[in-house]
């Protein structure tokens, strides 16, 4: 792995561990999971379904506390959610009762550190940038899947988070819309100095977007391989048929396929439902 120029480490994760349940039903979801994120780079995490990716996202975002290990953002330990680490969820989490415009201005509005007209001006510029200007007074239910995703990206970007976390944002979109959304997202990312932590289970998507690729093992999840993807930027669709892209795909496919079969075999929902049941307790 070529030695990368020493960039300031944005986020350090050391020996994270997280489990649910009790006694014989103890389900270890994350086990000594460690990695680092460099600032202004697009790091992609890939792993089979049920390997603890979403749990890791919840810990980084501050919604859940790990059982062991720690997460430091620019040296200071992370505690609870904050606008420095914003999450774009899998299914849309736009507020259904607010229009697109009200959704986008929500963050700066509640932080109350900018005048309202300034916030609204920023929002208009951003909506123009993501091509949603003439949908600003529409409700989320009136937007297509692609448009909802773009509105959600705008809602996060307007707060200039130090780290943007995306938890399989394009899952559920059909393959074609997904490819176009990936290009769209890259255009947005490559235009700004933004550190991104992107979680996915699609190999093609991971390599197409990533500067650095982290591969996670099956449950209990930990980082088992790191690949530096130095494909040229800006990345275009034609890249998908180039040989280097193919090489990276082969390299990660080898590791991932074994993990996928294990996850697929263990596919019974019984364990997953137990975790869900545990989650209800502390709501």
């Amino acid at each position, binding site marked *: 792995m070529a030695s990368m120029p020493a960039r300031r480490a944005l986020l350090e994760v050391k020996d994270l561990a997280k489990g649910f349940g009790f006694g014989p039903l103890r389900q270890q979801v994350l086990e000594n999971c460690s990695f680092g994120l460099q600032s202004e780079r697009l790091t992609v995490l890939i792993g089979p379904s049920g390997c603890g990716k979403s749990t890791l996202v919840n810990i980084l975002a501050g919604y859940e506390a790990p059982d062991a290990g720690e997460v430091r953002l620019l040296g200071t330990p992370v505690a609870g959610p904050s606008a420095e680490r914003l999450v774009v969820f899998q299914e849309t989490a736009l507020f259904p009762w607010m229009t697109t415009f009200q959704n986008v201005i929500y963050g700066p509005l509640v932080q109350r550190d900018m005048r309202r007209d300034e916030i609204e001006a920023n929002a208009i510029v951003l909506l123009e940038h993501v091509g949603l200007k003439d949908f600003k007074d529409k409700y989320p239910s009136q937007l297509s899947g692609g448009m909802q995703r773009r509105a959600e990206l705008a809602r996060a970007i307007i707060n200039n988070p130090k780290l943007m976390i995306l938890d399989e944002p394009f899952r559920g979109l059909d393959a*074609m819309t997904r490819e*176009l959304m990936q290009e769209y997202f890259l255009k947005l990312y490559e235009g700004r100095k933004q550190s991104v932590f992107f979680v996915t289970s699609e*190999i093609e998507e991971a390599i197409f977007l990533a500067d650095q690729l982290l591969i996670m093992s099956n449950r209990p999840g930990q980082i088992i391989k790191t690949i530096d993807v130095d494909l040229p930027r800006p990345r275009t*669709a034609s890249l998908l048929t180039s040989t280097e892209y193919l090489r990276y795909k082969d390299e990660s496919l080898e590791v991932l396929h074994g993990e996928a079969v294990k996850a697929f075999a263990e*596919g019974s929902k019984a364990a*997953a439902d137990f975790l869900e049941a545990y989650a209800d307790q502390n709501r």
Partner: protein
Amino acid sequence: MTPVAARGAIGIRNVSKIYDPDGANVLAVDDCSVEIAPGEFCVIVGPSGCGKTTLLNAIAGFHDITSGEISLDGKPICTPGFSAEPGADRIVVFQNGALFPWSTVLNNVAYGPVVQGTASNTEAKTEAQALLAELGLSGIGDHYPNELSSGMRRRVEIARALINDPKVLLLDEPFRAMDALTKGVAQEFLLQAYDRVRKTVFFITHDLEEAIFLGDRVLVMTTRPGRIKRTLHVDFGRPRNYKIRSSKQYLTLKSQIFEAVREEAVRAFEAGERELA
């Protein structure tokens, strides 16, 4: 060598379909013609709204067509004003799954033979048990569908179709809701079930990768109104496994129609945005 199917030839000749949702008649499929040979794995790929589901529903007998004719082994099954009753000779595996949530895996698989009267309740159950075992699904017979993962549910649904030995298997984006890794393994399951007893397969999808990996022939559809834009013959030979995904030949095939598919995707993406907004 696995037995080549002698039946299940689908003839689609100049088929068009106009929908009339409250007056604004929409041309969904425009003059499509294709002859699918018995035992052929034919894949239709295209953006949403390109009429691929309309074609599948017409073959399955859920609605008629406005012009043209669809025949199965020479017998017309769908013409303007007429559509043959859906039946066990052409079974659909639906996009979000249609296992009866209220009956166990075993009763689901045994459903076909029981209602058709081709087997008694117990005979059907033993037959179902055997098929499940052969497909590596033994041991989950008395589970309910909601207790299984999406990958497993999809395999049971394919088994539920295969037990009736249909002439044609119609698959409507069966792996769409799955994450990529589960999807890859589920696709391999379908291929191995296909190799077990050759059947005509009519498979529709949004995903070009999936189309090339699975199909003998790939038809690219245009955005509404749906026309067959390009045809691609895929001869990887059978059986196939995930290794071919990174083979040179796979990539050249993909690049051949990548542009054609992308054009339609972009048009649909823009149309979709306008249509919905």
